[in-house]
């Protein structure tokens, strides 16, 4: 992954990078804000829902309980009347029952059922029952029929046995009201012969339908609903009528295999209050809040679908998301526009740079109006084009000048080579070889060999201080002077003294030249020589032994105009060679900066003596082998004279 990022990122353009960075960071920020907001709002809503559910249930319980309390109060009043009346007639009892139904809207039906034998007017059984028809009119029936046998009914037996008022479990009153009802039954006692005796049961029926309507009328959001359970968990009211009295919370728990629902059932039986979040009967995630109705011991439960509760939150979140995404798009669009405005000049300039790189220096640069870094870049680019043009012009001029100079130097080289002896004189009793190899195009080394009229041979070798053009000019002067002076049949010391005098005149630059010159008597082999600070030549005997000629050092020529050089002599025997050289040989450098030196020169010269050309060749080879690729630092000149 990282590798991929590392590979792809550098290839992306500025716009793509900006958008990528923006999208990633924007998505992160948006995600965090959205999540925090959603969590926070959801929690708030949940708290509100709980509070609301509590309020609703409390109100519903109070409302239902209030109704039931009214029923209880009125029933108790009736029973008090029944117990207090000195004597009761059948009509009177009927009136009581009738009035009870008529005056209490919440009462569906009422009966006053007498214990067999305790009925008024000497009747065995008496149970006048008034109830409401669907159209609202009051109907009457006497429950004291053999088929109904009211004394066997739970609403009659339970209060009688428990000696206290009882709310019955809901039931379908077959033959009575013929509706599903629950009955508040109160035992009636009267004094009979000074003894308080059970007299019968007075009841008030409450239609569960009616109760269900009351419960259903509770306003619980859009899809929220309330249900009422008896103490045993029987559905008393539910929006699904088919459950009422047919199912209990436990049977539903079994069917749905829901342990939570069973827990609620147990909690209801224990008259507890609770709040849980679970799936409702229809599998919808819901909040369920339940609380007991104190009067009857029933429990009221309200169910709010969770999704509905969060619908507002979700709607708000959707809106926020929509706004965020919209804003995001606007941001991306503006980034694209900004990036384009930045990159367009760069792209244009890239094109221009390519044109300029291709050599089109006159190419008109695109107008960049944008400021900031890109503007600065554009300005720098314009400057660069100008500078480049200028540089090219200058470079062209310099190159031309350089070429001219090179050509001039090349010509100078040819001229200098022409100054040196092109063909060395061929003498019957002498072998002569010479070589001049400048370090640059032109050099400051010189040599010359001139046969004199009397059969003698004048030779000279020299090395001008420094290198290059000044040395070359000085060398040319020196050679010309030598040729002029040698015509006058003088000795080498005199020749050298005169050359020095001429060179010293007006030599403010302090150039100088080392010179070794001599005159060889080809008949006798005697050499008269003079030296102006030059390296001592080598004398190589017929046996191949090489030695340095011991010479007196004289001052270099060109400095002191009144300097007088002295002369010395030596002898060249048969088979012997005189090897003259410049310091370019002994001071040739290898890569480590070491000098070739006199000893290597002696060794190279000693090993090759048969021929002067071979000798020079051998020395050059030894020097090149020693230098091993290191650049030649100084001019190299060799001149060999040999008696065969």
């Amino acid at each position, binding site marked *: 992954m990282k590798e991929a990022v590392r590979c792809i990122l550098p290839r992306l353009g500025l716009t793509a990078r900006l958008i990528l960075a923006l999208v990633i960071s924007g998505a992160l920020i948006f995600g965090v804000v959205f999540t925090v907001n959603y969590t926070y709002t959801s929690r708030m809503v949940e708290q509100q829902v709980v509070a609301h559910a509590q309020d609703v249930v409390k109100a519903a319980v109070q409302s239902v309980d209030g109704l039931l309390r009214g029923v209880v109060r009125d029933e108790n009043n009736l029973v008090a009347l029944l117990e207090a009346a000195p004597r009761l007639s059948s009509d009177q009892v009927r009136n009581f029952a009738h009035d009870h139904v008529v005056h209490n809207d919440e009462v569906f039906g009422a009966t006053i059922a007498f214990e067999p034998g305790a009925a008024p007017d000497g009747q065995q059984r008496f149970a006048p029952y008034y109830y409401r028809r669907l159209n609202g009119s009051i109907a009457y029936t006497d429950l004291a029929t053999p088929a109904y046998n009211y004394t066997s009914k739970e609403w009659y037996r339970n209060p009688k046995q428990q000696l206290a008022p009882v709310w019955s479990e809901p039931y379908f009153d077959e033959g009575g009201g013929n509706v599903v009802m629950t009955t508040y039954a109160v035992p009636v006692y009267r004094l009979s012969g000074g003894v308080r005796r059970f007299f019968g049961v007075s009841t008030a029926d409450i239609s569960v339908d009616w109760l269900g309507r009351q419960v259903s009328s509770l306003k619980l959001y859009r899809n929220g609903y309330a249900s009422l359970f008896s103490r045993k968990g029987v559905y008393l009211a539910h929006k699904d009528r088919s459950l009422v009295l047919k199912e209990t919370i436990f049977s539903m728990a079994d069917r749905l295999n829901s342990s939570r629902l069973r827990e609620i059932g147990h909690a209801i039986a224990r008259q507890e209050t609770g709040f849980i979040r679970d799936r409702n009967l229809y599998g919808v995630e819901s909040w369920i809040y339940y609380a007991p109705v104190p009067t009857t011991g029933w429990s009221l439960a309200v169910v709010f679908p969770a999704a509905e509760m969060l619908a507002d939150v979700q709607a708000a979140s959707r809106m926020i998301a929509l706004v965020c995404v919209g804003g995001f798009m606007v941001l991306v669009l503006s980034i694209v526009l900004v990036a384009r405005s930045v990159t367009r000049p760069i792209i244009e300039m890239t094109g221009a740079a390519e044109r300029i790189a291709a050599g089109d220096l006159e190419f008109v640069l695109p107008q960049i109006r944008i400021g900031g870094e890109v503007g600065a870049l554009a300005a720098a680019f314009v400057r660069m084009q100008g500078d480049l043009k200028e540089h090219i012009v200058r470079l062209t001029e310099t190159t031309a000048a350089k070429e001219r100079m090179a050509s001039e130097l090349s010509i100078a080289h040819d001229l200098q080579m022409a100054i040196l002896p092109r063909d060395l004189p061929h003498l019957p009793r002498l072998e002569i070889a010479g070589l001049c190899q400048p370090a640059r195009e032109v050099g400051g080394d010189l040599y010359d060999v001139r046969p004199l009229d009397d059969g003698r041979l004048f030779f000279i070798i020299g*090395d001008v*201080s*420094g290198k290059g053009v000044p040395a070359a000019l000085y060398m040319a002067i020196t050679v010309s002077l030598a040729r002029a002076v040698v015509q006058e049949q003088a000795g080498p010391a005199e020749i050298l003294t005169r050359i020095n005098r001429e060179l010293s005149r007006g030599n403010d630059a*302090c150039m100088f030249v*080392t010179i070794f010159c001599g005159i060889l008597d080809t008949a006798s082999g005697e050499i008269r020589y003079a030296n102006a*600070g030059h390296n001592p030549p080598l004398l190589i005997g017929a046996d191949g032994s090489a030695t340095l000629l011991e010479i007196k050092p004289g*001052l*270099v020529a060109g400095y002191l105009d009144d300097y007088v050089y002295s002369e010395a002599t030596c002898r060249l025997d048969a088979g012997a060679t005189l090897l003259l050289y410049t310091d370019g040989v002994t001071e040739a450098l290898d890569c480590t900066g070491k000098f070739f030196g006199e000893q290597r020169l002696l060794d190279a010269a000693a090993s090759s003596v048969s021929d002067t050309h071979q000798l020079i060749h051998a020395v050059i080879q030894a020097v090149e082998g020693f230098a091993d690729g290191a650049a030649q*630092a100084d001019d190299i000149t060799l001149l060999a004279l040999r008696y065969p």
Partner: protein
Amino acid sequence: MQITTTMKEGTTIAALAGRMDAMTTVEFDRWLAERLAGGETRFVLDMQGLDYISSAGLRSLLSAAKQLKAKNGSLLLCCLGGTVEEVFRMSGFLSILPSFPSVEEACTTLG
């Protein structure tokens, strides 16, 4: 090439070290020009540390001697040795540039 300069009783003592060839001689020329511009006219060059001197170096010393002669100054050498001394000897320079075994002796000569 390194040039280490000390002053002693109006004499400029310069210890030259390394190679004095066509390239590095320029440094010596520049150094000398600065010294001359500063009014110094008495120089002792300590050549002990010098490994090599080319003809360009010699030319530079000749030039220096000439310039100092014109200003009634002086240029003395000391502590020559090895190949450098050989070059001085062979080129005949020892006959025109006074040389001494030590700095002290050179300075004594200058008085």
